[in-house]
């Protein structure tokens, strides 16, 4: 136990201030401000891999590491779409995942947002549309925010998620837990 505590003390706090939201990633401002306000700062995300190469998943995992500390911003990943405010969808949507993705979307309570992550999710990417792939996420369910990149860096993912949220909160609440004076 002592060496665990020693290691924690030696490591210190690695968390960095979050990046600013990237408004240019917002595709559609679909939700009314008052509805979004109910999502508040406790945002829950259900991630759906709809056919990615798993590169995007590696970077989404990185959001949980101490540097980005997503949970420190009040945002967390949940195990069921029924608990989620946001679907974070990766991949070109494979035809084999299309039904599961639509069902996941239907199972997510309103109001909800959809973020398409990665070049494949935004445009179909290198896989495109084919006998087996339906291409971009927006071809299957409505998309609010699109985060390009192959894969998007954790910073880009955070910017996209915060852009979705910044629509949600009036300016006073928009700092999203960043300690005073550390923003930017």
């Amino acid at each position, binding site marked *: 136990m002592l060496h665990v505590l020693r290691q924690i003390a030696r490591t210190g706090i690695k968390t960095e201030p979050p990046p600013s939201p990237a408004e240019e990633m917002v595709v559609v401002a679909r939700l009314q401000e008052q509805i979004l306000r109910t999502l508040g700062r406790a945002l829950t995300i259900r991630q759906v891999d709809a056919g990615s190469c798993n590169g995007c998943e*590696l970077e989404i995992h*990185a959001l949980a590491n101490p540097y980005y500390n997503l949970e420190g911003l009040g945002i967390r990943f949940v195990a069921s779409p029924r608990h989620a405010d946001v679907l974070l969808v990766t991949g070109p949507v494979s035809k*084999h995942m299309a039904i599961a993705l639509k069902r996941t979307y239907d199972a997510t309570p309103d109001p909800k947002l959809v973020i398409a992550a990665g070049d494949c999710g935004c445009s179909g990417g290198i896989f495109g549309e084919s006998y087996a792939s339906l291409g971009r996420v927006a071809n299957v369910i409505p998309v609010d925010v699109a985060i390009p990149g192959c894969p998007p860096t954790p910073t880009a993912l955070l910017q996209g998620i915060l852009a979705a949220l910044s629509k949600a909160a009036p300016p006073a609440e928009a700092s999203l837990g960043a300690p005073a004076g550390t923003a930017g």
Partner: protein
Amino acid sequence: MNVSPLGIATAPLACNVPAQRCPVSSGQLITACRLAWEQGGQLVALWGSDERDRERGFCLRVLLKDSDGLTLLEHTLPDGGARYPDLSAIFPAANRMQRAVFDLVGVQCDADDQRPWAWQAAWPIDQFPLRRDFVASPKWEPGEEDYPFVRVAGDGVHEIAVGPVHAGIIEPGHFRFQVVGEKVLRLEERLGYAHKGIEKRFEALPLAEGYRLAGRVSGDSTVAYAWAYAQAVEAIAAVAAPPRAVWLRALCLERERVANHLGDLGYLGNDGGFAFGLAQFSRLKEDLLRVNAKAFGHRLLMDVVIPGGVAHDLDAEAAAALRAQGASLVREIRVLRDIYDEHAGLQDRFRQCGQVTVELAAKLGLTGFAARASALADDLRCDFSMPPYDVLAVRKITQTSGDVAARVAMRFDETFESLRLIEALLQAMPSGEIAAPPSGFPTFAFAIGAVEGWRGPVIVALESGPDGTIRRCHPHDPSWQNWPVLEHAVIGNIVPDFPLINKSFNLSYSGHDL
């Protein structure tokens, strides 16, 4: 493999490890596989291709590996109605590959198990995407199949269905558990959800550009795939990458190995109830990826390996940063390993959990680091003379217990060995050019690239078409072999240990589903 007892003619096969190709008849196919098994060989890959446009019907290719190298058996079927013998009695891993060959190419084997594998009702079952006359229709809607899972009956037995959308941040797949109480009687996997037509997509790309798609077959093994693809292209063009490029490729491959092992060590701690481990290892992995981005322009090293060489050179400053990071990682991981080893609760979860005995591993054809955790000592980096590993004396690491604890120990040991290799590569890195792009590709040339990725052997079989096009490309992930073994590894374990066992293998869905 020594095929002389069969009296089959052999020809050399263009590959970066010793390899031969042999045309075989239906009868010879099965005797050759039996002989390979008796000589200690294993099935590496099995795929088909449509050769009707060249008046050659269909070709079934079976790639075997033993201590002599690779042997490619090529069996020609005159038309789509002809069947080939079932190889799954000799190599159980052949089962799913044979089913996928039917779904995609439309040639059938004479096995009892004719259930679809790659097909899930997204296209008509009598249409075969990898046939050259296949035309996809925009009218085909995604459908639902009624897959005949094997059920266990009896008092108190119930079924748990999981996926394809999992509870965590995981790729899509379906698991069907038959359990009594919390004990797993049987697990059946249904994969194929990430099938996005990669092999067909290759056929629309030029040989010189397919490396980008190869690097996205399985994102966590992007260096391994891009390197295997590049090897195949270079073998077709009969050129070699400059020495500095080869060393830089190995540097990237070992950093990819370390990154994946660090990530999984964190999650293995977390799944064992030790969140501290995840925080620490994910921090180290992030440090590694950030230095990757500075040194090579991409955190996961995508598109760094290209046919003919590498796309980014390493300057002195970046090399120094890599060496400093290597030394610091060794120190940090030693501390964490002591903590893992001495943590009674964690060790209690790891030991005797998800055990694969050496006999089972050999019978099912387990491969890669998971096989080495079950005392099967195969590693392409050590077994064949392959630059730059031939001058680095790679230490082959094995464990014997075949449980989660053994796979955790493998990851620690391989991480230390990779960090040693990285330091050795950086110390003696040759100078010179980093790329000599190949050009002037012959038509209908066939080659194989083989690389020991972090998970196991990654194979790319490539055939050129006219004017530098890709006629056929089959990438093969070691997950094909290891997924069926996972079904066995969980038998008799409790359901809550499944995530831990699963993570200890961490198999690729995308690399398997294609």
